[in-house]
């Protein structure tokens, strides 16, 4: 979490979309989704979707009922943060980002993303990779958080996966475009459910990055990949405002 502070400040840059839409109350209008689970609504962000699921939820083991209950409890908490009119966008975003950082297991994500190539990294390189990759994700996913303010999130369903993993499926409903399907894959790590993959419209973040890293590492050594990540992070727009 050494880099957490960097991303806690916010990007004040107003966007056209933000000025167009205010936080809107939920509506059931275009929902044609057969939910058997309780539908949660409210203005939220893509990152909030991650937060909805997991923050600080613990369970004794990889038990589906416990996971579901935990997800529901967390959902309520985060929706409360999002609906809190006392908070401005920046404060709300910071809350959400903190929760997301706590919800993702970056070590597992890094291991899965590098797969067998993980072994080619020295311990120091592994640690650096985890930090740089975390920073990369935070920069690229956090930079448009303003644009998600007019969206709301519905938990569609959930299901058990192999290895005791759990998938929770959500829909991000947007006012002037089709809804986006976002699935979260969870794993109980040391008794805590953590997000280990985000699958947007069927595209897994893990698989996508693994494909990129594999192609790079097929021709280069870990040091080269780390340098690419470092350079990318240096040149990409920082989230911190000051």
């Amino acid at each position, binding site marked *: 979490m050494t880099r957490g502070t960097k991303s806690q400040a916010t990007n004040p840059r107003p966007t056209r979309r933000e000025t*167009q839409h205010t936080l809107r109350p939920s509506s059931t*209008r*275009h929902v*044609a*989704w057969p939910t058997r689970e309780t539908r949660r609504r409210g203005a939220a962000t893509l990152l909030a979707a991650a937060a909805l699921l997991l923050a600080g939820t613990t369970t004794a083991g990889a038990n589906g009922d416990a996971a579901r209950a935990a997800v529901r409890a967390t959902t309520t908490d985060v929706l409360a943060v999002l609906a809190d009119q006392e908070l401005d966008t920046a404060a709300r975003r910071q809350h959400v980002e903190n929760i997301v950082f706590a919800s993702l297991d970056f070590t*597992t994500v890094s*291991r*899965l993303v590098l*797969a*067998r*190539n*993980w*072994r080619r990294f020295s311990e120091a390189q592994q640690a650096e990779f985890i930090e740089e990759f975390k920073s*990369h994700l935070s*920069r*690229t*996913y956090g*930079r*448009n958080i303003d*644009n998600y303010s007019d969206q709301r999130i519905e938990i*569609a*369903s959930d*299901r*058990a*996966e*192999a*290895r005791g*993993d759990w*998938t929770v*499926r959500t829909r991000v409903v947007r*006012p*002037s*475009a089709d809804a986006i*399907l976002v699935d979260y*894959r969870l*794993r109980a790590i040391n008794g805590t459910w953590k997000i*280990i*993959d985000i699958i947007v*419209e*069927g*595209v*897994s973040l*893990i*698989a*996508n990055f*693994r*494909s*990129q*890293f*594999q*192609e*790079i*590492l*097929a021709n280069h050594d870990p040091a080269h*990949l780390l340098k*690419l*990540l470092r350079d*990318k992070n240096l040149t*990409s*727009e920082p989230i911190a405002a000051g």
Partner: protein
Amino acid sequence: MPASARTTLFRIAIIAAMVGLLFSTGSATAASDGSGWEDASARDPMERVNRSFFWFNDKLDTYTLAPVARGWDWLAPKPLQRSITNFFANLRFPVNMVNNVLQGKFGGGAITTGRFVVNSTIGLAGLFDPAAEWGMAPQPEDFGQTLGRWGTPPGAYLVVPLLGPLNVRDGGGMVVDWGLSVVPFVVNGWILMGGGALSTVNTRAGVLQEVDDAKAASLDYYVFVRNAYFQRRQALIRDLDVDEPTTTEEDLYDDSWNEEPGD
């Protein structure tokens, strides 16, 4: 003639697809790191050619399509953009209908027909989508998906100039779908061309942020797109919203080899 221009475009697609087929039968090998997870998205025997076409498409987009789309996005209110998207989606009725049926999805075919009737009339020629609000959600299917559903593998990855990412299966599917759509044969060529341009710009305007994000989020944008295209098509073939465990991708989430010192 605009119609012939469009035909030429599809000829290029067919030729590219055939070339891809030739290559794919010979040397298609997927990259693997030996972890049990095979990166099927990396079946790309023409990578060098593809990368150069990809570069060409990207430059063309950056300097022509994207700026126009940005202007359009600034000019056109969101509801108008939405209506234009709806309008062109409604025109895909024959393609959606036939492919639903070909996949044995008769319910989907019925809903597709219902959508077309409702949206073409009450929805003012497809500009609005009241059908979706009445419980008839869109059921888009194309021939590439139909082939995939019946077991046709994607084949080699292709980047086609002006068209973008494809694979052999979906390229062939695109040609069939084009034959299915009545519109090109009954509508005046200029209208067709204008419509195509409007649809392209409007679609691009809808993903301005997404494309920027993708470029920022990737270390190798070419591989990012190749993999995203592959995953997306596979997901569409098995229908995104079917609620079953993702057994075929299970090895993706296996990191048990990490603890084993040997193999």
